[in-house]
């Protein structure tokens, strides 16, 4: 049930700060941009890094899971956003809703927002699969907040709880509890004992873990941080190029290039804006490009 698996490529050999900085940059930009071209550029960049990290299959599972939500966003937006000028379909009069019209603009807006959601989901996927949980604990814990540390520790407990859940449901099925057959209501009722056992055992486990933490002097005074992660030229290269992408993105945002007017009619596109979107996208694809060189030229590895 453990999500993180170290693989042999450049993305996993980056300093944790570098990869987390990259993820934060893409996340911030995805919130700033509303233009579909800029968002598509971000999506391409983050997917190229996911592919370079060798976690494309895991990403596909995330995407399959999120497709339903995306479809729902598009349908709801198309039905309820009635500002579009280019009407594609007008419904007959419906009770409660009146006449609903589906416009090209509302579909495009739904599509644009779906791309933003895909970027955010992909960034989350990258964080889950590529960032070593211990290293992120250390980075966040370094900020000094105990609550941040507690949250990160609870993510450590999560895989254990999933394992517990599987084991307990097996035992309860052997006891005769119908978890996967019978009426919906009965199934829900039969799941209650499992949740109850899971809660109790998680509480007991949390107590044992905190006892173990206490016994190893957690909270006994100021902490220090063990680090063996060394900085390499690759980290500086990626940080500089990604920071360039971030600055260009913020500049585009301030200039209004990364915004896009969907309503009332889709705005025309400026070629310069598309070029800037492509530059930002390429700058954020840089880790993938560097990984390509890393895999192709082994001699490059010791240099960067």
């Amino acid at each position: 049930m453990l999500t993180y698996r170290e693989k042999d490529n450049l993305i996993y050999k980056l300093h944790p700060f570098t990869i987390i900085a990259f993820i934060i940059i893409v996340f911030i930009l995805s919130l700033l941009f509303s233009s579909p071209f800029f968002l598509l550029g971000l999506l391409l960049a983050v997917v190229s890094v996911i592919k370079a990290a060798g976690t494309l299959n895991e990403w596909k599972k995330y995407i399959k899971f999120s497709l339903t939500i995306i479809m729902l966003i598009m349908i709801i937006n198309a039905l309820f956003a009635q500002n579009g000028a280019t009407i594609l379909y007008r419904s007959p009069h419906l009770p409660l809703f009146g006449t609903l019209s589906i416009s090209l603009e509302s579909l495009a807006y739904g599509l644009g927002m779906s791309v933003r959601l895909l970027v955010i989901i992909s960034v989350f996927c990258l964080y889950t699969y590529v960032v070593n949980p211990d290293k992120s604990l250390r980075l966040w814990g370094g900020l000094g907040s105990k609550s941040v540390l507690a949250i990160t520790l609870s993510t450590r407990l999560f895989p254990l709880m999933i394992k517990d859940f599987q084991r307990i449901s097996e035992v309860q099925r052997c006891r005769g509890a119908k978890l996967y057959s019978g009426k919906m209501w009965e199934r829900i009722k039969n799941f209650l004992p499992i949740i109850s056992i899971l809660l109790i055992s998680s509480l007991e486990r949390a107590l044992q873990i905190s006892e173990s933490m206490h016994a190893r002097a957690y909270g006994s005074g100021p902490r220090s941080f063990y680090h063996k992660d060394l900085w390499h030229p690759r980290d500086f290269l990626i940080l500089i190029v990604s920071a360039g992408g971030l600055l260009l993105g913020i500049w585009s945002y301030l200039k209004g290039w990364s915004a896009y007017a969907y309503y009332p009619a889709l705005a025309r596109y400026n070629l310069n804006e598309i070029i800037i979107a492509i530059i930002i996208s390429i700058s954020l694809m840089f880790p993938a490009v560097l990984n390509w060189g890393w895999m192709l030229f082994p001699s490059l590895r010791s240099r960067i």
Partner: protein
Amino acid sequence: MDAVPKLAIEDLSYYYPETNTPALNRINLEIPEGQFLIIAGESGSGKSSLLRIISGLAPEFYGGSSQGRISLDDVDIKQLKQRELLQKMGIVFQNPESQLIMMSVEQELVFGLENLGLPNNLMRRRLMEVSGALGLSSYLDSFIPELSGGQKQKIALASVLAMQPEILLLDEPSSQLDPIAAQEFLAVVRQLNEDHGLTIILVEQRLERCCHLADRIIFMEQGQICYDYKVKERGANQWTYKLPAVFLPPIPKLFAGLGYKKLPMTVKQGRKILHEDFPSLAENKQVSVTVSKTSAGAEEQQNIVDIRSLYFSYPNGQEVLKNIDLSINSGDFIAVMGENGAGKSTLLKNINGLLKAGRGQIKMLNRDTGKMTVEELAADIGYLPQDSMDYLFLPSVGEELTYTIKNRNLPDDGFKEHISKKLNLKPFLECNPRDLSAGEAQRVVIASILLSRPSLLLLDEPTRGLDNHMKEKLGELLLQLNSEGTAIVMVTHDVEFVAQYARDLILMFGGIIVTKGSKYEILPQSTYYAPQMCKLFRNIADGVLKADEGKEILAQLIQYREEIM
């Protein structure tokens, strides 16, 4: 004048919060530096509480109140800062799953050092030293959830040792491990004591695993130290016949039962006594001793489970069961043994329907289980999990039993009353199952299973975490059920339990059944799986597995000696 003890406990009493009965009652104990002390006693006798209070976890972490004084190098530990005390005392707990905090081994090992605020270069040096000493260097980048229980426990030990404690406290560290991992773990502890002079306090119920390591053994009862034995020379025949039999491991218990005053600790010492006391054995003279064995009833047995050419692979393609043929009949009591990953638990899950066979067929009372759900099979197959707490969820024992009756729509024809009487659960009917001991909670699960009158009982490591007394009770109960016709299949690592109670044995390796047959055919021929009695009487009398058989042989030897004298 005696040197100042490393640790001195004077008149120590401790009460957990909201209790009136002391968990520790006026304890006095002095432990010199470098001593290997074992604390034994039944569940709830105060062993773990004593460790908690020595380590500073109680009352600091657990709350409650304490009286008396604990001093370390003649300094009252109350005067020490938490950080100072924790640096001097390292504690390793029972369950490896619940004491590791980080994902990677390396991060786990430095966790305590980070908490102590040590500089980075010192942490690196300690990491290098401790991982080298415990052979963990190649695991540093490994992920803890993927390691075995034994490896996890070793990491827990290493993470405590990295803090360089002066006293190492171990709270039943091997109780959740299989015998090989447990032996490996205790060997490391012994090395730490012998090579590094570390003072060790080990709480352990299974003395047969560790008594030969100790310099001193204390026994606790109701929060008090009731026996305190200092071993004059480690490994010598120092067991005393004055100890209550329940504390004694099988070999000293055997000799104590026949009035021996000097009791051996190990098989080696036991054989030495035999050869000294019965010179005819040493001279290789033929001694005609035989074991009378009770054989299985020959009455007609009903076939319950029939497995033919069973293959099973997990979704990742790993083939875990290969060509399994097995017949389980009413009245069978079969133990399934083999190393971890041999396919034992997978076999159980195929029988109770949690996993479906890839190829081959399993028939339960002549019905193909491939077409039946787990819930349907549950009426005929009772499954006792490793941890009883995965089974029990209601606030009282009585409600647990009623739940089974209602869930299965069984008639309440007084059978519940009968079962709770038979399993001696009547005093606990109002108790919360979580407040019971491991052995009592296990009886509640068995009672709940028996209510649906299953033909087959599957047990997964039923003796893990039980003390000798609880094990004996479980064994007797299983024998009783078996004699009433319930077939039993039990996956276990516990050789002694198998030798004492099971009838037949299956050894699995790499997903195949390597051998199956009577325990009397298989165990005596095995080197690793031979029980202690068998090792003690090897080349003296063949096929001695159980304690009473050992007693019979020893009595025969004594009689034989008296006859020729």
